[in-house]
């Protein structure tokens, strides 16, 4: 920041402070740069991939199922996250429809701590899954996102759990669930364990935010600014995988 020189007998010396500062910066650059460039931790280069066993297992919920050898999309999501709802509305709902019989689309829970209704919503979806209606509840939660995930003015994420639970009950009735059993399952250990297992797998797959999508085990990293661009990238990637 300031170059200090002590002038003694006409010779200029950088002060010990300047030398030490330069030393720290140089050492830091060498250490960080060196470890990073040497591909530290033996991480694979390029797009990170995650092994299939971490991304999905036989119990994972499938929105569409084209068999084990089909192109597989795995989405880690948080039902209350606005970006996930945006992905649903703009990208994944269409993908599910258009590619339905050709791909296997797996949904995993990754409720984030800063979304207070994400966990109850994940419990609702899992509890519906206990009665074989996971996909129906998944659709109901996103189609009616405004009814429970955001406040009544629609300008902020909601933290009104009673309102959300009432909405989940109405979805449960609409899709024909046994509501008493639905309530019991939502609070059950089995549902809690499923959600925890999904989160643990997400962490192993280095998921840090939502939505995170994997196509055939490779993380989808969009570069587009708009949903339209991301959607196009996503479909191009899917088409490329399907063509192989």
């Amino acid at each position, binding site marked *: *920041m*300031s*170059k*200090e*020189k*002590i*002038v*003694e007998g006409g010779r*200029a010396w950088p*002060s*010990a*402070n*300047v030398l*030490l*500062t330069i030393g*720290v*910066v140089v050492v*830091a650059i060498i250490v*960080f740069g060196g470890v*990073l*460039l040497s*591909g*530290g*931790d033996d*991480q694979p*280069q*390029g*797009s*990170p991939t995650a092994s299939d066993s971490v991304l999905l297992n036989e119990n994972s919920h499938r929105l569409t199922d084209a068999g084990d050898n089909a192109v597989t999309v795995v989405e880690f999501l948080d039902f209350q996250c*606005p*970006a996930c*709802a*945006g992905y649903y509305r703009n990208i994944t709902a269409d993908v599910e429809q258009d590619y339905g019989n050709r791909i296997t689309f797996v949904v995993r829970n990754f409720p*984030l*701590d*800063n979304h207070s209704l994400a966990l109850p919503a994940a419990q609702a979806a899992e509890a519906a899954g206990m009665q074989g209606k996971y996909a129906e509840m998944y659709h109901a939660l996103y189609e009616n996102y405004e009814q429970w995930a*955001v406040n009544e003015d*629609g*300008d*902020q*994420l909601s933290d009104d759990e009673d309102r959300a639970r009432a909405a989940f009950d109405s979805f449960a009735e609409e899709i024909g669930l046994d509501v008493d059993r639905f309530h019991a399952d939502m609070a059950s250990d089995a549902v809690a364990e499923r959600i925890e297992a999904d989160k643990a797998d997400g962490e192993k797959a*280095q998921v*840090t*935010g939502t939505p*995170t999508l994997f196509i055939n085990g490779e993380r989808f*990293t969009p570069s587009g600014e708009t949903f339209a661009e991301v959607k196009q990238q996503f479909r191009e990637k899917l088409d490329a995988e399907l063509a192989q």
Partner: protein
Amino acid sequence: MSDTRVTPASSERTDAPGEGPLGRIVRWLYLIGGSIGLLASFVLMVEKIALIENPSYVPTCSLNPVLSCGSVMTTPQAAAFGVANPLLGITGFAIIVTVGVVLTIGFRPPRWFWLALQAGTTFGVLFVHWLIWQSLYTIGALCPYCMVVWAVTIPLFWYTTLHNLERGHFSRGASGPGAVLARYHSFVLALWFVAIIALIAVRFWDYWVTLV
């Protein structure tokens, strides 16, 4: 800005009376650092308002899952005192810039004024370190504009403290440990920054390696 300070044989201070050797650094830091902090807070507030108006708005600094203002700005930590944090930043940095201007004009503040600046920058630096902690280990995302604020708040605190130590504002006595710290001022600051960068590097290692 290269400046050659001639140390006279009599070891008299060459600085203007009332401004210690660190005074020049403090003055420039308040002007430039304060302006950068003010700009960053202002932009964050603008983004926050855009996000309130439209919850699906994607802030300009939401680049990917790690560098993501959106996921940081919607957390409770983003309004730690009940109001949006950038409001505190706009208020605080506006004061800092103003102080930088009046110092440049030649105002030589009394001791109480420096102690008030010490209180303000100390609050700022404590708050910023709490936010760094929350951002890294609770939220798990980084907000680039917020990091600009971190980067200016730390030197503002550091040089205010050194200046106050060096001027004896804390004890009215001799400068004490301040003299040693002041001699190695930028070295200590560099260590401080490297420590934080190391924490960020380790926390998001999996992400950084995907970039090379």
